[in-house]
């Protein structure tokens, strides 16, 4: 069962993020994807995540399809104009890829080619509207697609930032109106704050999957607090990691992740794991939290 079917059947949806390599050899990430696949409905393929140049999201999404796995094709507006975006969406569809996560995309300044010219010809709301047009059998200029309507299942992201909740909910509502059928959130650590966000986000009636990042150590948590907008790791969690021996950190990280999943699972319709290399630990989190594929 893939993500589209899981959401369609109102099951608890589970996805995990995989990042294509900086290079041409996909063996390692394919192996990781094969290991993760039985535990999730789909694998999100990142699109030059954090503006760091990698093998393309489309390319690796196709590889996953060829392996019989379910990709979520992540598409940002940073590197392609409306012509390139539509072309890549059609290419994805021709390989049977229908589930797309539409994103604005980090600014190039954040990545490893900071002098690059960003595109942002259209933004994520425009991208969702573009997908809607393709699903109606037309391109953005109104020209008919020779193959008839496409059949994309688009999702979007949201940052449940307490400091900017009004602005984020404004954008989220626009994404819903532009056709987003599911949401994957930025990492959640502070569950009471997230619960406040969900009180309002629930009204949109679109399934929300809580983002889960595994904290590898206290330093990573502090770094995220300082550098990732909208992410707040509570002091208590930082202290827990600090007070844990290095050899027990992975177990502690899994314990914290599983606890957060356990606390948010009744607030949301799914979870989206972002293991950042700790793939086995991500599976362990799901197992410890008692979350399996339904």
């Amino acid at each position, binding site marked *: 069962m893939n993500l589209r079917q899981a959401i369609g059947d109102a099951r608890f949806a589970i996805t995990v993020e995989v990042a294509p390599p900086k290079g041409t050899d996909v063996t390692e990430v394919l192996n990781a994807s094969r290991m993760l696949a039985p535990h999730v409905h789909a694998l999100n393929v990142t699109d030059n995540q954090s503006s760091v140049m990698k093998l393309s999201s489309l390319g690796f999404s196709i590889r996953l399809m060829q392996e019989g796995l379910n990709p979520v094709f992540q598409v940002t507006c940073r590197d392609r104009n409306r012509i390139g975006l539509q072309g890549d969406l059609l290419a994805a569809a021709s390989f049977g890829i229908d589930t797309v996560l539409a994103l604005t995309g980090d600014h190039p300044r954040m990545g490893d080619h900071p002098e690059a010219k960003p595109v942002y010809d259209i933004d994520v709301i425009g991208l969702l*509207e573009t997908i809607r047009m393709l699903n109606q059998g037309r391109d953005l200029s109104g020209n008919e697609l020779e193959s008839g309507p496409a059949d994309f299942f688009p999702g979007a992201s949201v940052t449940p930032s307490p400091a900017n909740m009004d602005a984020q909910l404004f954008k989220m509502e626009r994404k819903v109106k532009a056709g987003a059928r599911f949401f994957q959130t930025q990492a959640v650590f502070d569950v009471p704050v997230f619960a406040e966000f969900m009180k309002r986000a629930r009204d949109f009636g679109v399934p929300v999957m809580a983002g889960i990042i595994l904290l590898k150590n206290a330093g990573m948590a502090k770094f995220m607090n300082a550098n990732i907008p909208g992410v707040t790791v509570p002091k208590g969690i930082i202290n827990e990691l600090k007070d844990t021996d290095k050899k027990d950190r992975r177990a502690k990280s899994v314990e914290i992740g599983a606890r957060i999943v356990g606390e948010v699972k009744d607030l949301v319709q799914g979870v989206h794991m972002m293991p950042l290399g700790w793939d086995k630990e991500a599976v362990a989190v799901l197992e410890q939290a008692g979350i399996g594929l339904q």
Partner: protein
Amino acid sequence: MIVGQQKSLDDIWRMIAPFSRVLVVGCNECMAAAHAGGEAEVAELASALRIRARNEGRELEVFEFTPKRLCEPEYVAEVLAEVARCKADLVLSLACGVGVNSVADQAADLFVLPAVDTLFMGTGAEHGVWLEYCAGCGECVLEYTGGLCPVARCSKGLMAGPCGGTRDDGSCEVSPDVPCVWKLILERATRLGTRERLLEMPLFKNWSKSSSGSPRRLVREDLRIPTEDCKEGDTR
């Protein structure tokens, strides 16, 4: 105003190496306001070049001239007259890029070089600080956004609300010096009761009207001077 910043003296020195009679030309409007190329900066740069030439034992004559501005033919004509008067072999421009192009277009055999990096259209927000306010996109959206421009002032030029990169203090993740303009737009729209207007803004911008199209040209027929064979009132 157009905001610019003088290039480093080393860069300018490298550029002018082949020349021996340099006319430093300023602009008494935008570049004067930007403290990059008004009369004062022209004098300052000319002195710096003279001192460096003396220190390095190089033959260099430096002249100074600052017209009202350099972006229109009548002022370029003044500069060309000055070039002839001092027999300059180079115009070193402290005007914006428009001035440099204007000279190059009108004087086919004259060298002209930029001593300023032209930056943006903006304002001097406080002494010594200039901010970009307009991108000249050719299709103004300020009617929807309460006067604050997402094209020029959002790092990504987003058209439909903020991205996830707004920091807790309201700054942009790209630079803590830049406020998230979408946060400001939303707060202002909430105060003015105009949030619905934001939803009316075109999602798909027509970039062919911007500098992403082809070089732009504005023709106002009502202002053009009729040519001999087509005078006003002529109904042929």
